[in-house]
């Protein structure tokens, strides 16, 4: 069951991500991105991380992508125009991306034991209700990164206020 879900929604995520790049209208790209987010949520769910799945849908598909669509509607953005791009990107682009992909996957695969230290991966597998596990982890072991992130978001809010304020 889990394998079938992974095959279907993993494939869907990849297809939607490709579609995101190939579509020429921004709204269609944004909708493809929504499909990617939803497929990822299903993958989290099939791994037993229900809270993460719901949060993924609420935050990414619900909040962030709605703002993307909102901005595209507000600016009434038209179809993008194709250009040939720079010569450097044309030559090094594909090999460069492949090289970075190889490097990253090498690092992740060789160091995969080190990533389990925060126990998130370990907790998600067995527990049926993992909301309390995730939250107690957030407020004990991961408190500092959690608070730093909230300060970061606060800075972004202040920036928005400064930009939106009328000139005196």
């Amino acid at each position, binding site marked *: 069951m889990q394998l079938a879900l992974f095959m279907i929604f993993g494939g869907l995520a990849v297809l939607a991500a490709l579609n995101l790049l190939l579509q020429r209208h921004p709204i269609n790209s944004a909708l493809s991105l929504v499909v990617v987010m939803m497929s990822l949520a299903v993958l989290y769910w099939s791994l037993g991380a229900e809270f993460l799945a719901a949060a993924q849908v609420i935050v990414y598909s619900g909040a962030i992508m709605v703002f993307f669509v909102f901005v595209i*509607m507000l600016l009434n953005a038209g179809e993008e125009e194709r250009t040939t791009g720079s010569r450097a990107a044309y030559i090094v682009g594909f090999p460069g991306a492949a090289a970075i992909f190889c490097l990253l996957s090498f690092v992740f695969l060789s160091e995969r034991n080190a990533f389990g230290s925060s126990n998130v991966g370990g907790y998600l597998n067995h527990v049926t209700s993992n909301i309390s596990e995730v939250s107690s982890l957030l407020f004990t072991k991961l408190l500092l990164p959690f608070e730093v992130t909230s300060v970061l978001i606060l800075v972004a809010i202040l920036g928005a206020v400064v930009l939106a304020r009328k000139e005196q």
Partner: protein
Amino acid sequence: MIDSLTQFLNEHWDVIISLVKIALLVFIVLTVNAYLTWFERKVVAHMQSRWGPHRVGPHGLLQPAADGLKFLLKEDPTPAGVDKFTYYLAPLMALALALTSIAIIPFGPDPIVVFGHKIYLGIVDLNIGLLALFAITALSVYGVALAGWSSNSKYPLLGGLRSSAQMVSYELALTMSVVGVLLMAGSFSLRDIINVQAIHADRGLFAWNVFPQILGFICFFTAAVAETNRVPFDLPEAESELVAGFHTEYSSFKFAMFFIAEYTSMITVSSLCAIMFFGGWLSPFPATWTFTHYLPSLILIPFGLWVIWDGIRYETIFGRIVLPGIGTVITVIGAVLIAFPFINEFIQGPFWLLGKIFFFLFVYVWMRGTLPRFRYDQLMAFGWKFLLPLAMANIIATSLIMALRG
């Protein structure tokens, strides 16, 4: 042959039962939606000293069927210059999400036992039930926003923009207002939320969440009305300014899909109010008052008799046949409940839950009949400067009291 069939049924029992439940629930919800439009028109009409629909069928009872047929048979034009894919996707998304959200609502405490299998009233019981509901609500903005954008026309675009801004703004207050309830229940499951309110069942309605969480309830209901785009927050379809808002360019059954989605989300919001703040299927009387279990019969039998009495004096022959028939059915149901105590006990939970849902649906209609529409800047100021701080204050107060009590 028979053996392999029973074996197949036993192996796939869960899937089959789920499919049957889904089909049944969709049928019931669509019927209730249809009669909700009748109910709304009737109640608003009587509030404004009019008769409301009364031509099609006795008391206009066949009006929903006539409306449905009209939606199905009307010409279904696609305006020139629309973005076809998104134009067709938007009403589908709106309807599908609205119908999905109702799958999480549990409608009764006890399962029906058939051939040793327990069948619960409700399609799924998730332990992140409320979060899943909010995830679906968060997605429902797309239906409106995409409909507005894809129509390639001024009024729908403005209506869609307004509506998505409104829904995004009120979603915050909506989500934060229930944190108090979640803190008290310690769970996201709707069943658990009701069971926590059942701990002091001897106190009757004073055990409900609405008393400690009155601020949360006010926030939740206001934000939910705004989220469902109903009066007084129906800015997206302010007909004096925007024709019909985001669904101006939709006609025939595609319009009906938006319509059904709106009424379905009204039902979902009413169920949530009943479950989270008003005890769900719990009776408002203390659990020891067993004589209140005859209340369903006490309501059904007089109502059925009144329908019969009203029916035999009705002016059309059709009404003189149909209305007494309906009245007899209602009276017989009431009598059956008295005659078979085990059915009566089973019906108690669903009776109270459905009664509370009906009450909140009436409140929706009541507001539509009485309140004027907000201005757009008032709407935004109300959401961000009043509801959101109120919801935050409620969270802080609830967690402080809970921490002090230990």
